[in-house]
């Protein structure tokens, strides 16, 4: 793969996406306000849960805020990259414009995963980082090299798992054409990622670890922040992320064989 070319193309993607989004200033403003209000709402909801109980699933409010911070970062990444691009796959397949993507001398998965960005999602990512820095101070977390490495690895793995889940569902559009509902169901499951895994019953914990690995997405990186994580859990997250990424890639290449293009 010619990485210089891909970098050049990605710079163009960024440029054209920004330019497209900036055509609609009011829309960006509304998105920014929504992101701030959504974060305030989520923290308020979390504080209600902790009002009567000091602990939920063994987590204090200040600790649970770490999960909220990671969730906000991941949600920001979803809104910046995954949502605008992967919902576009549905449109590409319904309208047959995937033809143009497939005939470009560039990896089609790269093209449809990164062509668009929604700049207002950046604010959510920034808000998430602010919340994390606040939590680091409140929980008196020691910022050493070990912590920085492990937290970067686990958050990166979470991004990979999240991307793979989105991409997997979007790819099924090649057979089912309309998969908006499945994407909405995934989004609803992701809301669960705002709460510690231990706060759920045993059966739900199994479901969110094995079937839809929401647990890996927020809880394991949060445990790294609090120094509670065990090496086997981090290793498992790396394995899950790698398997998910490879599977989503293979699944896309397999699905393309069934692409019949829209009729003219």
């Amino acid at each position: 793969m010619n990485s210089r070319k891909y970098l050049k193309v990605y710079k163009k993607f960024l440029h054209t996406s920004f330019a497209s989004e900036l055509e609609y200033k009011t829309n960006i403003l509304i998105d920014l306000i929504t992101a701030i209000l959504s974060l305030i709402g989520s923290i308020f909801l979390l504080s209600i849960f902790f009002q009567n109980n000091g602990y939920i699933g063994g987590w204090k409010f200040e600790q649970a805020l770490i999960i909220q911070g990671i969730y906000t970062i991941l949600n920001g990444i979803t809104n910046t990259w995954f949502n605008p691009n992967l919902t576009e796959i549905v449109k590409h397949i319904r309208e047959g414009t995937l033809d143009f993507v497939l005939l470009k001398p560039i990896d089609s998965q790269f093209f449809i995963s990164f062509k668009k960005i929604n700049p207002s999602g950046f604010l959510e990512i920034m808000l998430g980082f602010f919340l994390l820095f606040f939590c680091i101070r409140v929980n008196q977390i020691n910022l050493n090299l070990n912590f920085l490495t492990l937290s970067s690895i686990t958050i990166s793995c979470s991004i990979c798992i999240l991307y793979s889940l989105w991409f997997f569902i979007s790819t099924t559009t090649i057979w089912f054409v309309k998969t908006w509902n499945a994407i909405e169901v995934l989004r609803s499951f992701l809301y669960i990622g705002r709460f510690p895994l231990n706060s759920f019953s045993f059966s739900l914990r199994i479901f969110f670890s094995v079937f839809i690995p929401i647990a890996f997405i927020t809880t394991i990186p949060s445990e790294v922040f609090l120094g509670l994580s065990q090496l086997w859990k981090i290793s498992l997250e790396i394995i899950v992320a790698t398997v998910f990424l490879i599977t989503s890639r293979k699944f896309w290449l397999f699905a393309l064989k069934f692409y019949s293009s829209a009729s003219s």
Partner: protein
Amino acid sequence: MVQNIIDVKNLSKSFDISLKEPGFKGTIKHFFRRQTKSLRVIKDISFEIKEGEIVGFLGANGAGKTTILKMLCGLIYPSKGSILVSGYLPFMRKENFLKNITLIMGQKQQLIWDLPPIESFYLNASIYDLDKFEAKRRIKKLSDMLEIDKELFIPVRKLSLGQRMKSELLAALIHEPNILFLDEPTLGLDINAQRNLRKFLQKYNEETNATICLTSHYMKDITSLCKRVICVHEGSISYDGTLDLLLKKLSPFKEILIICRSEEDAIKLENFGFTVKNKIKNEITIKIENNSITSSLKTILNNFDIEDFFINEPPIDEIIGRVLSKKGYEI
């Protein structure tokens, strides 16, 4: 000797389509137990196209023209048979193959809707690994050929259909492909825009010796661009040859409008034994076989008092329409 750039042998394609009975009961049945049927849309076709040729694919809606084009450019996997385009198996979509071809669809667009076309051109240039100066040179050259200039800097959503189509062409040709697949490129364009587009394609073919495969329902596109046509009828090729020969085969007659000096002469001519299409006062239209036009005209001029006459070619749309008609037509 000119090389074959496209080589198709015994190509077939089948699609699974779902069947639905009408009404509410049919909808419920369709939801729970979907019935599918395999439909053979392309049936064992073979043809070759030489480098630099412009070939028109003719056929009624649903005849399989677009499916053939999409298999040629590698978008659809064939069910049976073999295709070689520029020495490549199209469905492998190798980078060098993709750099050699382009697909333009009249009813679909790749330009970024909210931005001026120039932004899409530079994006495509980066995808085709062109440096900024080369991209700029090609944009200038193609925009001169297409006669677009200030439109390059106006958001796509504000351009007219004709301007948008020209921009689509520029975006699709920035990598200077050798093979162009055009699926109804003039769809919805006004007469002037259609003419300009045809003029451009002709010029592009002359300058670059690019091979062009074209489908269109506008006969003018076919007659002014294609020397060779491939007629597709229900997934099979019903004719593959020159357009001239097709027209001769399909229309062995010419219509001659004769204006007689008096109505009496017109009545006499009407009863002379020619095939009369219609007669209005002293004007009479007769149909004469192509190979007997000279002798028939001699007879008419010697025996009748003629004021004027006009030889008309039968309308090409009407002739081609017969090829496209669904049932019982064999060339």
